[in-house]
């Protein structure tokens, strides 16, 4: 389970995240929606323990910078960051050793096969295209069998096969009881499987809906998204 409680992140005078709170339960896919610059990637990085912030974040009840929280967390960044001089397989081995995993090879083989990377095992990070790097990055994030998974714009740069596999993988992980948080500005890409949605605007959560709430009221998530983002833009335009 992921708990975000009153998180504020500032860069100088700019407030990137303003007192953000939400939860993602086990077996739930939660999406962070919002236009560019809304603060989605910042909150994901705060949860991953990459940024300092005010407030509290817990991964399965453990403070997010604790070792146990790190063990339970899988993070797939927006921009794949591979080591130029390690091969694809060595990235797997590096992660397995860093997280002290046992019997990981079978899982690594399965992931590489799933994302059509078996024949790239001996390719160096620098020899891969951006899409390939993103696939390796996904494999690295999932190899540790995390209980909470953070995906920051994960579909960007992927080919159709990899997008399909990633979607299937996300659904499988939900069924296994993982708490999954996906940041995106493309509603269509998560339309089939989201359980809860947080719409972010100017560093705040402007609205939160669950799929069951929307099904009950007949509200349309896309319409709500544009209503929030565009009314805000009009308001700012009016103020100017």
């Amino acid at each position, binding site marked *: 389970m992921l708990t975000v409680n009153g998180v504020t992140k500032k*860069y*100088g005078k700019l407030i990137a995240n303003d007192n953000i709170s939400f939860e993602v339960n086990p077996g739930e896919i939660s999406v962070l929606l919002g236009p560019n610059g809304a603060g989605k*990637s910042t909150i994901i*990085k705060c949860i*991953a*323990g*990459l*940024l*300092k912030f005010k407030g509290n974040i817990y991964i399965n009840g453990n403070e997010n*910078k604790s*070792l*146990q929280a*790190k*063990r339970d*967390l899988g*993070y797939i*960044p*927006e*921009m794949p*960051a591979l*080591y*130029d*001089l*390690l*091969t694809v397989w*060595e990235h797997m*081995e*590096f*992660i397995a*050793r*860093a*997280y*002290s995993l046992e019997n990981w090879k079978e899982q690594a083989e399965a992931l590489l096969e799933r994302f059509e990377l078996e024949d790239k095992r*001996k390719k*160096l990070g*620098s020899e891969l295209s951006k899409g390939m790097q993103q696939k390796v990055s996904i494999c*690295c994030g999932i190899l540790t069998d995390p209980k909470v998974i953070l995906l920051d714009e994960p579909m960007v740069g992927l080919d159709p096969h990899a997008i399909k596999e990633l979607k299937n993988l996300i659904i499988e992980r939900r069924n296994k009881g993982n708490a999954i948080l996906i940041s995106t500005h493309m509603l269509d890409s998560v339309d089939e499987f989201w359980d809860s949605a947080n719409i972010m605007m100017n560093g705040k959560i402007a609205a939160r809906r669950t799929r069951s709430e929307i099904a009950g009221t007949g509200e349309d998530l896309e319409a709500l998204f544009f209503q929030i983002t565009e009314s805000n833009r009009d308001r700012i335009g009016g103020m100017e």
Partner: protein
Amino acid sequence: MKALSYLLITQLKNRILSLKKKPALLILNIFVFAMLILLIVVSVFATEEMNYGMDFADERIIYLIIAGLGFLFLGINITTGLSTGSTLFTMSDVGLLFVAPISPKKILLYGIISTLGKTFLASFFILYQIGTLKSEFGYGMREILILLLIYVLLIFACQLISIGVYIFSNGNLVRKKAIQAIFITAGAILVALALVYQRSHQTDIMDALLWMVDQNWFGFIPIAGWAVLLFKGVIEEIFIKVLGAGIFYTIFSILFIYLLTSGKSDYYEDVLLSTELTDQKLKAAKEGRKYSPKSNRKIKIKEDNKEAIKGIGAAVLAYKNRLERKRRSRFVYIDGYTVFACIGTGIAAYNMKGNEFAGYIILGTLAYILFFMTVFGPLNFELSKHYIYLIPDKSVKKIVASSITSLLKPCVDGVFIFGIMALLGGTDPLTAIFLALAYMGIGVLYVGLTVMYQRVLGGQPNMLAKAFVGIGLLLIVLAPSIISSVIVAMILPESLRFLSTLPFTICSVAFTAIIFIACGDLLDKSDYLVK
């Protein structure tokens, strides 16, 4: 042309207006400008009488500096041209101008003017040498302005050469080899000439070099020679020399611009790759990352498992770094820098034989280079990846593990460099050993400083503030080590003078240990700023 002139003017205007939003930068600019004016006023008026009747330094030294700079720029730009090429453009030019219905020739002119403007601004540092040039050589504003012009011409001409070489040799190995051969042969001929003069006149190499740059034929050597010819023409007030240099540069520029724009040659494709690479370098610098260009060297991945990563938890970072080093250099810690430093030290030690401070001068020079290599080195690179932050292990363990290769590298280098110094410079072996230890100590200290910088300045977006505070911290950390060594050197008798660097080494290691203890929580307390 309207769009291009609008672009040039608007960019300049916005650059100036942006200073309003950056008060620190505005103050710095005003300060630099005020200092410049002050320097010009003081040096032009105040030393007029002081210079009267004084003996000035040998003017050929300036010729040699101009020639040296010319060859240096030439070498760097030809090398760049043989690999990726230089560029006059930015990625926004590629995206917006190259596809616009504007003549490529006009766009090239825009690129040239824009580059010249930037080069001219960068060359202002020469004006800070007014005092030295006036007191040592008796130069006035005219000579100094000519030096400024020469600097701009050198940079501009070398950039054109870089693009020209790239267009001429791109994808053609024979042409690349031919250009390399011409450049190396020309260099070898000049070195041979200087050596012949040195032997035949029983003089030193510096005297031979000064003789060479003063010869009339030297003025016909492209770029570097023309620059010397121009300056000599101004100094000696010989108009034909100034005119000659002007004609050479003009013909050269026209020829290269013609090469870029003539016939079927499409420079857009040629400059695209170099513009992309330049853009990547700039982005990496802005984000405080290390830019690692793709190597053309084919790295062979062994079939057996001997190269596999080892270690568990944080230790895996050390093994990973070692594997990466091994893939960069077969001998792991002995790489191009080791060879370069050994050769440089060997030459310096040989030439400074008998100078009791030679070892310390070499140590100081190497320590200066090592600072940049370490601070922008592997640890900094590791911190630009998210893995180190996520690995479930203690921050201090991860920092130490990822620093091990950086800690070992100066130790290995120290043995070779100061071994060579003892061998070629005749330095007493004990002194060489303790100098090597001091080199290792400072290498270790720099690793500690890299951690401290990230801890103290990691969240600071202003690069200028980072640089100022960084230098301040460096001085604070280095001062006690240097002072303790100087005091010990004064106290110790001649026979034990070799021990004078020991306090420096001990202090450096002790400071590093303190930094690691104090900043070991770096990964929990600092921001990961890379996207």
